[in-house]
C-alpha cells in the first residue's frame, strides 16, 4: 500500500481534540432532534452558538470533512452531521476520497481502495 503523505492518516490526539473541541461539541448537539431542526432552519445562525473559528464554521457549512478533520473534527462526531443531512458514512468517505459514491462503493466491493493483500 503506497502510504504517501497524501493519504497518511490523521491521528486524533490531545492537540487536535483541543483545536476541534467546538466542532465536535456542535456535532454532539445534533443527537437532539430539536437541535437538528434549528440547525437546518439557519445553519450559520446555529453555528454562531459555538466559539468556532471562521475557518471551522466555513468548513462545516461547506461539508468539507477533510478540512474539518484537519482542524480537529473527529469522524465519530462528524458522522452526526452527515446523519443530519441524511448522508451515509459511505457517501461521506467517498467525498473525502474525492470520488463519486458509486465508484467508491465499487472499489469497496472489489476488496477496498487500498488493499495490501490484493496489491501484494
Amino acid at each position, binding site marked *: 500500500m503506497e502510504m504517501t503523505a497524501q493519504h497518511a492518516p490523521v491521528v486524533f490526539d490531545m492537540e487536535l481534540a483541543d483545536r476541534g473541541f467546538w466542532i465536535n461539541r456542535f456535532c454532539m448537539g445534533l443527537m437532539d432532534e430539536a437541535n437538528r431542526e434549528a440547525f437546518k432552519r439557519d445553519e450559520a445562525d446555529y453555528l454562531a452558538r459555538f466559539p468556532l473559528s471562521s475557518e471551522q464554521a466555513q468548513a462545516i457549512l461547506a461539508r468539507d470533512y477533510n478540512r474539518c478533520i484537519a482542524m480537529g473534527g473527529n469522524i465519530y*462526531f462528524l458522522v452526526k452531521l452527515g446523519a443530519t443531512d441524511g448522508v451515509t458514512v459511505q457517501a461521506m468517505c467517498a467525498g473525502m476520497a474525492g470520488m463519486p459514491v458509486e465508484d467508491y462503493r465499487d472499489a469497496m466491493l472489489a476488496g*477496498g481502495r487500498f488493499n495490501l493483500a490484493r496489491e501484494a
Partner: protein
Amino acid sequence: MARLSATLYTSHVPAIGAAMDLARDDDPYWKPVFDGYATTRRWLAAHTPDVVVMVYNDHATAMDYSMVPPFALGVSDRFEIADEGWGRRPVPDPLGHPALARHLVHRLMTSGFDMAVLHHPKVDHGLSVPLSLGFGRVSAWPCRVIPLMVNVVHAPVPTAARCLALGQALGEAIRSYGEDLNVQVWGTGGMSHQLQGPGAGTINSRFDRWFLDELVVRPDALASLSHEAFVEQAGTEGAELTMWLVARGAQMAFQADGQRFDELHRHYHVPASNTAVGHLLLAQRAEETSQRQASSMA
C-alpha cells in the same frame, strides 16, 4: 461461581444495524455479511448467556471528550439506546447487571485497573449492532449487558498489552463472582477500515486474516502492536481491533484455570459499507459445559 461460556468477536459497523432495521438482510449486498452470523445465532439461541460484558468504544455518544476515560464500565440497571443523529435504532434498551458490574469494578480496581464508572450512559451502535448480530430482531434482549468502553480514538490510547492485561483481570474478576452466572465477553470493532481523508476506504485483508489467526492461538503476539502499527496496518478506525484483546484476555484467565475453548465459527467479509467484517466465536469446550451444568443442577 460465574463461568465464561464463550468469547465472541465482531465488527460493529453502524450500517449493519441500519441494514437490519430496514430489513435489507437478504439484499445481495448484505446477505454475505449476515450469512456469516447464522451459525453463531443458532449457537447463542441454544447457549444464551445470563450476561454479556460488551467491550466497545463509545462513538462520541456518552462522552463528548470534555473527559476521556481510558477504560469505563457501566454499572446501571438499564442503558438507553442513543439517537446518534439519524433517530434511535428500533431496538430495545439493554438491561444491565449492577451487582456483577459493581463486583467487576471492585476487583479491577484492586488488581490495578482504575476504572471510570458510568451511571446511565447512553449506548450506541458499538453496543447495539453486536447484540443485533448475535440475537437478531427481538422485543427484549435475552441477556443482561455490561458496557465496557475503551478509548481507541483519542491518542494516546491504552496499549494492546494493557487491553490484554485488563481482559485477564476481567476474567479473574468474573471467575471470582459468587453467583452461578453464565457470562460471555464480546470484543467488538474493526476490522481494517479508515473513515477519513483521501485514504478513506483502506482495507488490509492480509493483516485482518493474520490478526484472526493470531488472536485464537497466540494472543500474546498481538500485545506488542502499537497504536501506530494498528493505524498503519488496519487504518485509523481499524485501531478499534485492540478491544478484541480485552475479550481474549478474559478467556486466557479461564484457560489458565484449565478450561478449554474451541473455535466454533469464523467469518470474514469485505465490505460492509467502508469496513472489513470479521467475526469469531470461541466457546468453552462442550463436555465441560455439560459437566458444569450437570453439577449445578445436581
